[in-house]
Every structure is written in C-alpha cells, then in structure tokens.
C-alpha cells in the first residue's frame, strides 16, 4: 500500500471528507484554506477562499454540489463545489465546531461552540441543493444546549429522524430532529472524556463515537445502546466505519498535540488502527503520520481511506488485495456454508 500524500496545507488538518462517490476529498485545516483533491492521484482540484480563521469542519452534500465549512472566524459558509463560489455566509457569536448535511442533503446542521457567556447551539437549515437558489437566513430549528455540557460533535440519523450529539463530558444525546426535544442522554464514555468524533454507518442506523478515554463505541441510533466497544491505547480523535462488505472500523488518534514534542514518533502512537467491527479485535495498523491523526475518513465505496494529521498532511491509502481478502475463520465458514 503506497499512500498518497496531499501536501497543500500548512497547518494541522482538522477534518477530511469524501464525496459520495469517493472521487473527491475535501480537507480543512487551521491554515484557513479549504482544499478539494482528486482521490485517484492526489491532485488538487482547487481551493475555496474566504475564511479568515482556522477551520474546524467541512461536509459535502450527497450530490457533491454544495460544500459547507465552519471555523473559528465564527462563520458557517456554503460553497458551490464546482466553481468555488461562496453561496452563503452565516454569522454567529462563537466558532462553528461541526457541520453536517443530512442523508438527503436537504438539511444542514451546525454546532456552535460554548464560550464565555454563549451556550452551544445546534442549528439546522433547510438547504436548496440547487446552487443558484437562495438559501435561508434563519435556521428552521435551533437547539440551545443549556443543561448539558458543551457540544463537540453532532449529526443526523437515518431519515433525519434524530440529531445525535456528543458532549465534552463523554455523554451522547439524542434529540428529535423535528421538534428539537431532548430524548435521551447516555453516558457511554468515561466521565469528562470528550467525545471527539461521531461518524455514521452507510445507512445511518448506527454510529461510532471516538473519545479521549481511548475507546470508540458503536451505538444504535434509535435505542442509543452501546453495541460494540473498541479499546485502544491512546486518546482517540476520530473513528470511521468502513462500508460493506468489509466490516472494520478505523480509529485514529495519538498523544495530544501539546505533548507531541516530548515523545518520539514511535511512542506517539500516530497510527491508524483497524478493528473488526463485530469481533472488536484489532487486526492491523497503518503508520505514516508524524503527528496525531485528527480525522479519519473512509471512501463510501470502500476503496480507500484517508487520514488528516496534526502534521499537516492528508494521507490517502488505496487498499491492497489483502485488505479485501481478509476474513476471520468464522466468516469464511459462514461464506462457504451459504454457498452450499
């Protein structure tokens, strides 16, 4: 496996996302730029210019027409993917920590940071997927999170039925996406260990959370039950689920950025870890980054994955045949039995 290095960012990567067909990669970093890349060979398609602060988050709609970004300049912006035109800017009082499109691309969610005197908000906009159309100024739903601790991540469940958010204290909450009512709040991670990432399965019926408590947990989106737990030996920044037929999860993390200079790369544990989704067993690691992995994203078609690191590189890995051939003994048996 020869990773492709995407070197266009000058500072730490914060999020990377694949388009639905897996041909484009969108990356944002603390250097204020949004980049789009062809995943096939790592060539840069372009940059989206406008933000004036570190960027925290990016998401692309399922048609790869619209791109949403949010950052520390207290704005959430909507871009046309093809032309790079800035379509809409929403201003807030605090920075945007997470944006996400719903499954159908008709809704856009944003999470604002809780800071002195400001509470975390989860805002939802109705988006017209036509780039020419006028986008709304006011959100259709605004959840003001005042009783729960700071929201770090959030996303839409299947059919945009729920909004699920991860919090600074390690808890995960489920909200009604229509009314904004809090349905449940579960403490699945260790107390006061921030939930750092929340990624969905392909059908959005279950999701994976990563936390600083060195664990990633697979939750059911409806019951909020913890289905699986993956234990790592380092604080996690990101966790992704690979699409069928390979049922793995990829965890990324590493020593906190502030401690990195005091440790060697070997000890920093800057590796992507692969676990079997069902058996919760670690099956391999991919090294390469020389800083912690801030985000891991998987190509929705399952051909490759990429990771964005604190070291300013995005590494795109196209999987080799062993990855596709690998099966546990029981899986092999099951496959041979179903054939008979």
């Amino acid at each position: 496996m020869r990773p492709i290095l995407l070197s266009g960012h000058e500072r730490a990567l914060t999020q990377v996302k694949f388009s639905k067909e897996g041909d484009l990669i969108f990356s944002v970093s603390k250097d204020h730029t949004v980049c789009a890349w062809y995943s096939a060979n790592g060539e840069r398609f372009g940059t989206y210019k406008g933000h004036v602060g570190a960027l925290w988050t990016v998401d692309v709609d399922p048609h790869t027409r619209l791109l949403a970004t949010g950052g520390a300049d207290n704005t959430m912006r909507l871009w046309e993917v093809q032309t790079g035109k800035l379509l809409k800017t929403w201003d807030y009082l605090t920075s945007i920590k997470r944006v996400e499109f719903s499954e159908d691309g008709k809704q856009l969610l944003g999470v604002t940071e809780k800071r002195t005197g400001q509470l975390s908000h989860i805002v939802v906009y109705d988006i017209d997927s036509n780039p020419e159309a006028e986008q709304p100024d006011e959100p259709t739903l605004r959840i003001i999170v005042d009783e729960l601790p700071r929201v770090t991540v959030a996303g839409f469940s299947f059919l945009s039925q729920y909004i699920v958010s991860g919090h600074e204290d390690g808890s995960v909450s489920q909200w009604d996406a229509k009314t904004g009512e809090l349905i449940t709040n579960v403490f699945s991670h260790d107390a006061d260990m921030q939930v750092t990432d929340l990624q969905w399965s392909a059908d959005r019926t279950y999701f994976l959370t990563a936390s600083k408590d060195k664990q990633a947990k697979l939750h059911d989106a409806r019951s909020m039950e913890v289905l699986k737990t993956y234990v790592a030996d380092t604080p996690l920044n990101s966790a992704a689920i690979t699409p069928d037929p390979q049922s793995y999860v990829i965890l990324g993390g590493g020593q906190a950025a502030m401690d990195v200079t005091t440790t060697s790369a070997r000890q920093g544990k800057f590796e992507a870890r692969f676990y079997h989704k069902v058996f919760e067993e670690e099956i391999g690691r991919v090294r390469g980054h020389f800083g912690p992995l801030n985000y891991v994203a998987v190509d929705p078609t399952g051909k490759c994955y990429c990771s964005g690191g604190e070291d300013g590189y995005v590494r795109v890995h196209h999987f080799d045949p062993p990855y596709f051939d690998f099966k546990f003994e029981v899986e092999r048996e099951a496959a041979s039995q179903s054939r008979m």
Partner: protein
Amino acid sequence: MATPAQKTVDWAEDGEPDLAAAIPAPQVSKNKDGTETVVTIFINEDGKKVKRTQRIRRTVVKKKENPRVAERRTWQKIGLEAGKPAGPGDTTTLGENIMFKPMVGFKAGGEQEKAPEEDKKADALKKMQIKCRICMGDHFTTKCPFKDTMAPAGEDAAPVDMAAVENGETPQGGLGAGAGGYVPPHLRKGGAGTTGERMGGKFERDDLATLRVTNVSEFAEENDLRDIFERHGRVTRVFLAKDRETGRAKGFAFVSYADRADAARACERVDGYGYGHLILKVEFAKKADGK
C-alpha cells in the same frame, strides 16, 4: 493502390533521395489466433532502412465509471489551482510503501512490542542516575571496564582517606572517625601493606601504555581508531565508549599499547590529529591509584 507501384521500384537501384519516398505503408495482416501482424519499413536514426515486424494482440478493457465522477474529472480547476489543466493528470506523489495486512490476533508488531520495554529500562536507569565514576558512562562503577586501569574521572589526587592515612592520622575501625569517614581495610594503618591486593591484576601491565583519547567523533568506529593507532606500534586493545541506546560513540576511547615507548610516540603524534572533523586529544590515561 500505391503499393503495387512502389513494389516495382527496386530499392537497390534507387538513389539516396528517393529512399524516403520508397517506404511502403505498414502492412497489417490478421492471424488465426486473433493477433495482428504489422510489418513496418522505416528509416532509423542512422539513415538505414529497417523492417520491423510486430505481433499485436488487442484487448478491450471495459471500465465502468459513474457519470457524475466522469463529469467531475472535466471540471475546470478553481482557487489556487485555477488555470491548470482540468481533471486529474498523471502526477502523483507517493509515500513509502507501507505494509498493511490485516490479521487475526494482531499484536502491535514485534519491534513495537519490544521498544517500550527498552525505553522503560532506559528510563529506569535515568531515574536512578547511574553514572560511572571512572568513565562517566551510565553503568555502575563496578562494571566499568576501566575500574582497574583508570582513576575516577576528575579525581587526580588520591582519595581523601588516603591523604588522611598519609598524614599519620589514625582512623580506626570501619567507620572512620574524624574527617575521613569510612576507610577500606586495606588502607587502614597496619592493613595489608601499602597498596593492598588488587583485583584484576592482568590490567596492571596496561597501565603504563594506555592512552586516553578524547574529542572523538560520535560516528567513530573502533576499527578506524585501531587503524590510526596501529601505525605507531602494536595495539593490544582499543575501547571506544559507546552510548547504549543510540550506539554512537560517546566521544572518548582508550587505546593500550604493548610497549610504553610506542604509546608515548603515538601520544605525541596523534595528539592534534584531525579525525572525523574533530581534532583528537591524546594523553596518557591516569592511573587508578593516583600518583
């Protein structure tokens, strides 16, 4: 229809200028096994006429591509990339090859497993602050290879106790009274002679002919040093102090000669010799019991 006309021309009788005109078009014939034979006659770089016969098999590779993806490949680049040709080209920066093979019962790799243990050991050593008094290495003084030949570094004079003994003060018993503190039995008055018996007597003879070499490059090798010093006499031993963790030289070495005269000559000549961008300093090693 041009071919029959050309065929009538005998190339051997043709003059040089007509040569180019006399080249027939490539002939393509289909073979039974589905391949094609292409016969081309052309003029190579040296101006010679060459006949080339190629057998070609054509295979059609069908590749399915999502029309949306295909469309995106033709998009004009934007932002900082504006003006560059559309779509992904064939330039790719690849990193080093990384082995990734999923396996059951993965255990963070052999070498990864070992490394932290080593580090722990090193950490433990650092915590204990083990430092050899003789060569300043990170081992116990008793394990120093020079414990018998060298004086502890930075101690030119004999230990305090010894001075006390020489001054005629009489520390008695194991716990010395007065300034001296503990006095080893062999140094106490009435002990076994003046020097006492010493262990490792086999190093004794080296004492006089051992050189201490300092300011050695950290990339130095024992063999290099041996080469340098063997020019001046028979070298019995070369010891280059190396760091345990990094395996690099620590910057000093000991060289023993069979003959003291050789050692003296080497000391004179090699002192100030440039080696590995550093200038060697050579002096006689100090004796363990002081002078």
